Structure formats: C-alpha cells, structure tokens
C-alpha cells in the first residue's frame, strides 16, 4: 500500500475512527455497527475508570499470577553464541498462555455493559480455554466457535473448555479453521446482538478490538521494560514474538514502539515453506484487503477471495494479521520474518532440551528465528523473546511429526 511516514508518537494510534494509517477501521454489517459504537464508548469509559483498573489489576495479580517472570536463558544463550537471551514467561500464566490477559479485561467490560452471554472464536484452543475460564469465574454462559479441523487436532483443549462449562461449536463451513470460526462467531453476534458479548481473542477485527486487545496485552511489554531495566540497567536491543493475529506480539512491542533503538521482530508461520504457497504469513505472502472487520494484510487470490492459511500451529493458522502490525510493517518500525513448520518443531525440541521448557508450537516459531537475531545483535546485546504459551497441548502434534506413538 502507500509508503507512509513514520509518526512522532506511535502510541497515539489508532485515530478516533480506528485507523493505524490505512489499516484497521470498522468494516461490519450495519446490524453490528451500533454495537461497535456502544463497545467503543464502554471501553473508553472503563479505561478512564480507576475502579475498573483496580479490579483488573487485582485479578491479574491473584488470579492470573502476574507479573510473569523474565528469565535469563543461559544455555540457550550459550547455544546460539550471540546476545543474552531472556524469555518472558507468559506460558506460566493461569491457563498457560498470554490469552488470559485480554480475557480478564474483556470479561470485566462485558459485565459493565450488562451482557449476559459470551461468545468467542478459537484456533489452537488457548483463547477458547481462557474465555471459558473467565466465564466460569463470573458464571456467564459461553459458546466457543472452533473449526472442525482444529477440534480434531486440539482435542485436549476442547475437553478443557467442556470441563469449564463452555459449549464448543465445531464449524464445518469454509476451510473449517480459525477464519471460519470467526465468521461463525460474527454470525452468532449479528443474530444475538442484544445480550451477547463477542470476546475476540486477537488484536484484529473491527475497531475498537485491535486497540483494546493491544491495551490489555501491553501489560506484557510494560513488565518486560521494568524487568529488563532491573536486570540489565538498560533496554533490550531486540524483542521477538510469533505473529498470527498478533496479540502477544503487539502486547510486548507496544510499550517499546517509541524506543526506536529496540528492534521489534515478529515471526509469521511459513507452514510448509513460503515457496510452496502453503503458509500463514499474511505480511510476507499477502496484500492488503478487508476481512473480519478490518483492513489489513491478507492471504488472498488475484480475485480477492481469501485463501486458506496453512500452519502446523492452529493458533497461527489464520490468513490475516492485526492492523497495527500491517502499519508497523509499512512504516518500517517492526520487521516480520517467517519460520516453517519444520524449523518450529526443531525449535520446540531445542527449548525442551536446553531449558526444560515445552513451548507452545506457536511460540516455537519465534524461537526458530531467535538464533539469527541473537547473532545479529551480537555478544554484548540483549534479546527478549515472548514465550507466549506452553506446549503441553502440542505434544500429540509433535509426536505425530516425529513419527512417534504416544
């Protein structure tokens, strides 16, 4: 799209109409538009309310277990032979990933708005589990839409959601993965506008979701900033995160946007390889368009039909990306690399063997590029990686790829 000039203050975005440069916006059917405005107003009011902030902070401390540690990965650092590597341990949060941060914020907002029914979409099931968790905590009925393909490859998470009292609706339309789950959740919302709150799990969709989810996830980056200053007395040279929709990445990037000395590196899923066309890398392999309420980079064919994404990771298996990432890419503030399925499997094993941590296969994509980044930054440097989720859910997938029976 247009080459845009770098802004003086990145934190001033989006504008009032939900735009990050050309990206974002509110591309929804008219039925939803009044709700989108209502949500925006409710979010602005909550954001300014000390009581809301205090309630959220209390839950973050005592329910989620924040702050999550910033851990110096000594053996990984030695292995790569470059910069010092720190891992932001989001996988230690309650429910096992960063997804809970956003769910806490949005469930409190839904309650403020008087909504009595919660719906969500999920890919890997991490957001579905986090949503089911907060719904159980507040006694609200919860329906989670999940592609039938993902229901099959993430069975443990489906059962976890059921245990938490949520109803999981397998979605068979389209490619039966995350994008179709999101279509189905939007159809539910259009049909049940009056009592239903749509708890979107990533920093994408119609305004104000990209901004709101980013704000709730930015607690990750704010903690990292304080923790790395305490440990090293200075800011890191680079911050690395995997990107599907991009909520963990924008959460760790955002507090560093105005610190131009800190390189921000997102890693998209290259699936079977960029050259095969079977990947999920919207920025590296797509072009701008409109899907699910926002203008952003999308995988699409020459006629504007959305193409199916392909990734070993259900959480990255999405043909779009949050609009703020599209903008950060265009203005050159963040860099988006890719990692294949096989590279991510290798990275999964590496972290298990060197640090005793099973990463989510999503986060393993970021680890797959970590060596390159650490060596480029060099021995005196500091690199922080967002370890966004734990890998217990992926053990069966990894075993299958290794040809092992469990």
């Amino acid at each position, binding site marked *: 799209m247009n080459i845009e000039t770098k802004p003086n203050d990145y934190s001033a975005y989006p504008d009032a109409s939900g735009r990050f440069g050309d990206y974002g916006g509110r*591309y929804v*059917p008219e039925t939803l*538009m009044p709700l989108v405005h209502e949500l925006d107003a409710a979010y602005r009011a909550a954001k300014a309310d000390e009581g809301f902030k205090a309630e959220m902070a209390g839950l973050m401390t005592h329910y989620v277990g924040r702050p999550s540690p910033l851990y110096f990965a000594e053996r990984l650092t030695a292995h790569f032979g470059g910069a010092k590597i720190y891992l932001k341990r989001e996988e230690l949060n309650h429910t096992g990933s960063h997804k809970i941060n956003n769910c806490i914020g949005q469930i409190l907002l839904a309650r403020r708005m008087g909504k009595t029914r919660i719906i969500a979409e999920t890919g890997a099931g991490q957001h579905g589990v986090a949503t089911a968790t907060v719904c159980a905590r507040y006694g609200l009925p919860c329906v989670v839409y999940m592609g039938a393909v993902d229901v099959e490859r993430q069975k443990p998470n489906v059962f976890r959601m059921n245990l938490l009292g949520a109803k999981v609706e397998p979605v068979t339309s389209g490619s039966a993965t995350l994008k179709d789950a999101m279509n189905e959740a939007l159809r539910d919302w259009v*049909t049940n506008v009056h009592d239903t709150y749509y708890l979107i799990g990533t920093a994408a969709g119609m305004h104000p979701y990209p901004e709101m989810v980013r704000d709730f996830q930015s607690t990750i980056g704010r903690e990292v900033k304080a923790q790395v200053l305490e440990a090293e007395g200075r800011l890191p040279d680079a911050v690395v995160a995997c990107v599907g929709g991009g909520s963990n990445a924008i959460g760790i990037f955002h507090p560093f946007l105005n610190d131009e000395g800190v390189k921000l590196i997102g890693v998209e899923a290259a699936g079977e390889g960029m050259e095969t066309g079977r990947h999920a890398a919207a920025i590296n392999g797509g072009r701008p368009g*409109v899907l699910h309420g926002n203008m952003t980079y*999308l995988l*699409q064919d020459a006629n504007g039909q959305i193409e199916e994404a392909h990734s070993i990771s259900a959480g990255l298996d999405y043909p779009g990306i949050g609009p703020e990432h599209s903008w950060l890419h265009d203005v050159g503030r963040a860099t988006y690399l890719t990692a294949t399925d096989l590279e991510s499997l290798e990275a999964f094993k590496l972290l298990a063997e060197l640090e005793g941590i099973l990463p989510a296969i999503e986060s393993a994509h970021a680890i797959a590029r970590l060596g390159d980044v650490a060596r480029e930054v060099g021995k005196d440097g500091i690199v922080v990686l967002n370890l966004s989720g734990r890998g217990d859910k992926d053990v069966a997938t990894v075993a299958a790829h290794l040809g092992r029976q469990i």
Partner: protein
Amino acid sequence: MSKARIDARFAALQAEGRAAFVTYVMSGDPDYATSLEILKGLPAAGADLIEIGYPFSDPMAEGPPIQRAAQRALGKGMTLAKTLQMVAEFRQGDAETPIILMGYANPLIGWGFEAFARDAAKAGIDGLIVVDIPPEEADPLADALDAEGLSLIRLATPTTDDKRLPVVVRRTSGFVYYVSVAGVTGVKEADEAALAPHVLRVRASSVLPVAVGFGIRTPERAAAIARVADGVVVGSAFVDEVADALAMNESVTARVLSKVESLAKAVRSARVESLTV
C-alpha cells in the same frame, strides 16, 4: 443514467400501486451458463429489480444457503469480473430491469473502487450493496459510484435507531434496504406485524422507497410484506431451489423461475387482495 433506471422502476410501480419484487440470485451458481439463463428469465418470471450476489469466500452476514451458493459458484471458477460479464450479456436483451450487485468489500478493494465503478457502469449495473462497508467506511466507495452515476444502496436494520438512521440514508440512493431481522440471511423469519412501524420509520427518514429483505421465503409472507413496504426482497428461497434441483437432478433454471413466479404473483396481487378483503 443508472440511478435513473432504479428510480424509474420504483416510480412506475408506485403508479401501478404495487410493491416491487426484488429477486436475489448468486452469480455463477451453479455455473456460469445456468446462472445467465436464470438471470435472463427473471424479468419474465416477475422480477422487477434484480440483485446479483457476487461470491465471496467469507460471507459473514450470510446464512448457510447463501454461504453454500457462494461455495458452489467459486468452485466453478466464478469471479467478480465474470459477474460483470454476465450482466453485460444480460443487458444485450434487457435495457430496463435494474441490476444491483450485492456482496463484500474485499473483491472490490483489489479492483480499486474507481476502476470498478467505471467497469460496472459499462456492464450495465445500476447500484451496489456492500454488506461490510457501513456508512463510517463508505465515502471512498460512494465517491467512486457517484462519479459513474451508480447508486450505493444502504442497509438499515432493527438495530439502526432513529439517531443513526440519518447516517445510514445519507449518500444512499435508489432505495433503502431494510433488513427485517437482526441476523444472517435466510434463517430467522420476518414478522410483518413488528415490521410495519420500522418501515414507516425508515420511509420517513428519506424520500427513497424502502425494500424489505432477509427471512422472506413464502408467498404468504411476501404478500404480507408487500402490503407494508415499497419492495420485497427474496434470496435464500431461490438459492435453496438451486441446491434442491441439483440434489434431485432436476432443471435448476425451471425450478428457480417457477419459485420466482409463485412469489411474484403473491407480491403483485397483495395490495389488490387487501383492498377487496
């Protein structure tokens, strides 16, 4: 000139004292040739205006019938370019019936709004409904359509309150499409008793006629809506006929057009009957 075709049709029907019957079909469903044949047969079967869906892979406001129709069309290689070609072929034999395209933003964005408006006008299209471009995002598209004299037809819904209605009708031309239910196409049924006050409300918000759609499947329901609105839109019921004909190996064109005839009859006689009751 294209806005003129829609305006002329509504004016003529108003003079006749009856509501417009607006039929929706998916272009390229079940294939290009059959779809063109259906299109050509629609005016004689009783369609006053024609809405042509252009298929999109991720139609978020559609229920299962139109989702599947889009999948069938895409499976046969249908594209937006071929939809324009189909309308151009239709126009060779029909210069009167207004044609309105209905679909989603993304195929238009790749084309470019200005270029698309030019090509659509050239093909003989009169107006456009884009489900996922609400008024807040519509100015670039509205500018491009205005330049070519095409109508941008907006949707008003049960959630569009009086405060918002002026936002919706601003820059709308041709007619206002009132979505009779909060939901996706072809699922919930419209309730005409609850509907009438909404139609009056929307009609009062502009000088434009109001057509009502979503959830109208039977002649009885179509007639009831025709008594209160300026137009009745039926879509999923025809798309279902395509699916049923395919499943039963019958003539798709014959089944769709026969369904159109039965609903058209109901719409045409609705107000006459209501006068004699």
